[in-house]
């Protein structure tokens, strides 16, 4: 019987986290953030997101109408700020509810599993 490789574990763990990235990002964007600022904030919240993943994601969410953006040229360095759009906020609440439902069901299953498995 071949042992389960560490790589296998890493892949599954990544898949588990990957599904939560969008929700994590949206949850921060009730206030406006610029790219790098958001990156740092996520890191501080212990939900680090890869830079090469985050920036295209922000563009895609904007393209889908979930985020709105604006350039701030007041500082020395111009920055593009992202924030939840009006409909984006509704979208976020809905997705949040979806997560709550899923999480509750999963938690129930995990609890039961632990009762039965004595693990």
């Amino acid at each position: 019987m071949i042992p389960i490789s560490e790589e296998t574990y890493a892949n599954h763990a990544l898949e588990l986290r990957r599904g939560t990235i969008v929700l994590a990002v949206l949850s921060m964007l009730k206030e406006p953030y610029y790219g790098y600022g958001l990156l740092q904030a996520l890191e501080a919240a212990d939900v680090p997101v890869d830079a090469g993943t985050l920036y295209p994601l922000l563009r895609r969410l904007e393209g889908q109408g979930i985020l709105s953006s604006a350039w701030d040229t007041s500082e020395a360095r111009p920055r593009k700020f992202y924030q939840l759009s009006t409909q984006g906020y509704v979208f976020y609440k809905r997705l949040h509810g979806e997560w709550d439902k899923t999480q509750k069901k999963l938690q129930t299953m995990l609890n039961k599993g632990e009762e039965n498995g004595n693990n």
Partner: protein
Amino acid sequence: MEIIDRYIHAVIRRLPQSQREEVARELRATIEDMVADRARGKKPNRAVTEMILKELGHPEVLALRYSDTSAYLIGPKWSGAYWRVLVRLLSIIPVVVAVIMFGVGLLEEGMTLGHAIAKAVGAGIGAVVQVGFWTTLVFALLERSSMDPAKIMGAEWQPDDLPDVPKKRQIARSDTVANIVLTVLAIVATVALTLPRASGSVQVLNPELWNVWIPVFLGLGAASIGLEAAKYRVGRWTRGLVGANIVFNIVVAVYVIVLVFTQQVVNPVFVQLVSPHGSGEWVQWAVGITAVAIVTGSVASAVTSVYKSRQ
């Protein structure tokens, strides 16, 4: 810094024109932010910048994430249909092409069997490449279109569509196919080897055989195919089939023996050509050995059919 310019350029040149300026602007601002932060007040240097760029990853990969086009050549949506179509086409078209080119090769001027086979194999390989390329291209384009696989490929798969499990047959389908293919090839080869030709290249087999013997041979070939069809339909060796098989093989054996003993099978002109100084006896030997092989094969076929029907 120059290296940042180069990186940004490498990313945006993969993107559509409309997106370039915006992405470049945003990416530059972000990179400069990251560098400034990492440098922590000291002057930003090349090493820090390069580290940041490495973190962002290969520019083309990043561009792929920025763009809307599918990262897959043929993605999950179309992949199932793609493989099904490809396998089906590859199992039919190259074989058909190869068989046709084999026949063409035989009928050509100055043909030899080797030449015909080479032609067939070359054509077959060419067909495989063509089928592979065009199928892949079409599906890659479909992947990038907004079409729905269900509408193109027809209704969704139904359990009713499943083919029946092949019953264990005593007479295998592969045997039937092989026999029919060999018979057809033998017919084609014989006809090609004896057809009178205007250009004057020499026929291998005696043209006089066309009077009676070749037509009889073609008749036997047709009978053979008919027998294979009957065998296939019944699926196992019944007494009737065994009887027919024995009769057929006797006829074939008798035909071959009589043919070899009474007729000049090989074209005398061809014999002259092939061994101008010798007696050409080896040609007769070759014919004889072939005849023995055929008769032996016929007897063996008859015997095994009896044996199998007893099982």
